[in-house]
Structure formats: C-alpha cells, structure tokens
C-alpha cells in the first residue's frame, strides 16, 4: 500500500481536506472517506455517468478521476444543489415529472443537467439529449428526464427574468 496523500479541496463551497491512497478514485474518496454518499457508483468505467460531479469548470465521471487529482480543485456533488430545505429547480422538476424510479442514476443526471443549464439556459431537446448521452437510466426511458430538464430550464429562466424585473 502506498502512503496516503493529503488532498485539499473545496466541496460544495466548503473547504474539505482528506487523506487518500493514490489509487483511490475521487468517487471512493467522496463516498468512503468524506462521507458524501449522494454520488453513486454504477459501471465504474466511465460509461454510465451515475458518479458525475462537477470538477472545476466541467463535469466528469468521478470513477475516472483519482482523488489526488482533486487537490486544489472545487467540486460540486448532488449534496450541493439544494439550498437548505429548498430543493434546486431541477430536483423539483424531477419529482414533478416522475423523472426517476430507482434513483441510482439521478444524482448524476442532476449534476450533468445543472452544468447544461449553466452553459445553455434554454437548451433544445437535441442539445439536452446529446449533453446527457453519458448518463444512463434503465428505468424511465429518458423522455421524463428530458421533460424535467426542459421544465427546470423554463422555471429558472422565468424566475431570473421576474427577479430582474422587480
């Protein structure tokens, strides 16, 4: 076993330091070391997207990132989406549109969709489907997820424009 390495990060806007072995993935570090179990492991080889987190300015599959690589980086996980007891508009839309059944893929979809809406506040269906192609769901058949993301996009844009008007 290699010596553990100290890693300094910012997770969901809070400074977090942890110790990990170089071989441990960021996913393992988040779940087993830091105790943030919202991020899920699916395939473990980058195909399914359930372990998606935001790392710096882009999303990644955290199973294909070493924990040590996150040193000095800022990370957003699904735990960072809600404000206290107020759900993020994407989380509300997923509930309202029944965009989940078993829920394993949901944290990854939420983080990926959040990054999409930050880049394209009003994405087309095609943009949404291509952006989310790295996230697999075996329950919903995707249509409900796409509708939820589009509803959340409208909600966020409307709230922002109302806020600007006041």
């Amino acid at each position, binding site marked *: *076993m*290699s010596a553990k*390495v100290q890693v300094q990060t910012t997770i969901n806007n809070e400074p977090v330091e942890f110790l990990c*072995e*170089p*071989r441990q*993935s960021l996913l393992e570090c988040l779940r087993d070391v830091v105790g943030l179990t919202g991020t899920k492991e699916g395939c*473990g*080889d*980058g*195909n399914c*997207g359930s372990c*998606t987190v935001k*790392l710096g300015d*882009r*999303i*990644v*599959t955290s*199973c*294909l*990132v*070493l924990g*040590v*690589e996150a040193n000095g980086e800022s990370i957003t996980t699904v735990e960072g989406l809600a404000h206290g007891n107020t759900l993020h508009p994407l989380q509300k839309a997923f509930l309202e549109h029944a965009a989940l059944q078993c829920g394993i893929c949901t944290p990854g979809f939420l983080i*990926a969709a959040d*990054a*999409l809406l930050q880049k394209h506040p009003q994405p087309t269906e095609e943009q949404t*489907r*291509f*952006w*989310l*192609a*790295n*996230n697999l769901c075996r329950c919903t058949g995707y249509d409900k997820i796409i509708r939820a993301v589009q509803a959340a996009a409208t909600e966020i844009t409307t709230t922002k424009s109302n806020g600007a008007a006041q």
Partner: protein
Amino acid sequence: MKAFDYAAPASLPEAVGLLASQPSARLLAGGTDLLVQLRSGRKEADVVIDVKKIPELNEITFSPETGLTVGAAVPCYRLTAHAAVQTHYPALVEVASWIGGTQIQGRASLGGNLCNSAPSADSIPLLIALGATALVAGPSGRRTIPVEEFCTAPGRNQLAPGELLVSLHIPAPAPHSGASYLRFIPRNEMDIAVVGAGASVTLTDGVITAARIALSSVAPTPLFVPAAGEALLNQAPTPAALEAAAQIAQEAASPISDMRGTAAYRRHLCAVMTRRALELAVARAQENN
C-alpha cells in the same frame, strides 16, 4: 485497483527524468483509458505520473502563420471552446465533441487518444488528414513524428521507453482548404466507429491541389491512404473523382469481423464514409476563402 504512487511533475525535464527512472510508470492525462485499464488489470503501474501540471502539455496556441499547437493533455472540452479552433478547424471541434460523452470530454485529450493507439480512435484519421505531427520528448531530446507513423499496432506506438508526447502540431489551414471526419455508428452518440474516415482537400481555381485521406477501425492501426489523396490531384472535385478516391481507400483497408460489423460490411462502409467525408471537406474548402 493495485496500489501505486502518484507524481505530478511541474516541468518537462522533471517528467522525463521521472519516467526514465521508473520503468513501470504510466502517464496520466485525462485517465479515461488509463484508469479503466489499471482497474481491470489490463495494465499495471508502480507509479502514475500526472502530466497535467506541465505547462507545455496544457496549452493551446494558434497563429495564422504557423498553425495550431495542442498540448498532449488538453481536454476535449477546452479544445471545442477555443475560438481559433472553432474558426479554423471546425472538423477538430466536431471530433472532440464525439469522443465519449460530455463527462469524458471533460477529461479526455487528443494526445491521450493518440497514445492509446486504438485502431478505432476517432481523432487520429482527422489528425492525419490535417497533416499533424507529434512532438515527443525523451532522455535523448526531442523528436517529431508524423501522426500517420505514430501508431504501430493496436495499443502500440513509436514512443520509446522514457519518451512522452508533448504536443500535437497542425499546420495553418491553406486558403480554400477544408477537412472533415465522419464515422458510422449505429447510435447517435457515445459509440465506437464501425468505420471512420478523415479527409482534407485544398482547391486552387476549382482544382484539387492537395488531399489526404485516413480511416479508422479498418486495419490494426489508423490507416493513412496516400494513394487515395494523390488520385484526386489536378482534378475537379466531381462525384466521379471522389468516388474513385473512395474506391482506393476501400482497397487499402484490411478490416476484421467483430461485434461491430463484418469485414465485408466494413469494406463497403470504407467507400461510403470516404466519399461522404470528401464531399464535406470539398464543401468546406469551397466556403473557405
């Protein structure tokens, strides 16, 4: 995953020194191939050397005179967002947005795609068509390798022990030139090419004065077919001329049958994809003043 040590050298000499002193080291850029291979046991490493802290491997530079230099570890999402790349190398933006999905593009690099040396690598036929060269550094200094000579077998390449890929250089696009890469996949995204074709074409007064064609997934390495490009020289880009070049590309291919398609199907696709890639490259050359 078997235990290993981690090093993140901040300079190229440091990385070369470390690589030379550690025979079982593996280089980490985006990790989208390496970490899968380490976890599955297909590859082993005592030390993983993260090359992303080395400035030269992380830079994108463009000048209209000398062209584009892309550091070996630059992830696809930075390439697709780069204004000069969008303007001058639209085919490169396309290919970088087809490798994996959004999350993979947040990590994966063209340099990693080349060093992984898969016959199906999407970026390599386009790099060959664009006349790209690979800058390599090692214990005995630096050398430049044309991308079409880089891969030697599935998963193997010309990198000698102790050498690492620094950057890829693509010449500035000539006036009235265009390039493209098209792949055939049974889905719309997140798939491996059954056959892919990269093409570049330069027109002078409506006549083709330069053309390069390369294929993926039809040979043990990405396949450069110089004869297909040469057949187009001094010809107008007529359907017959493009089809003749496509036939030459098809004849050069030596595909295998596997889960993605039979050899016969792949041979058929070689001509189809080459013709379509040439049509797109010609259309771009005609638009590009």
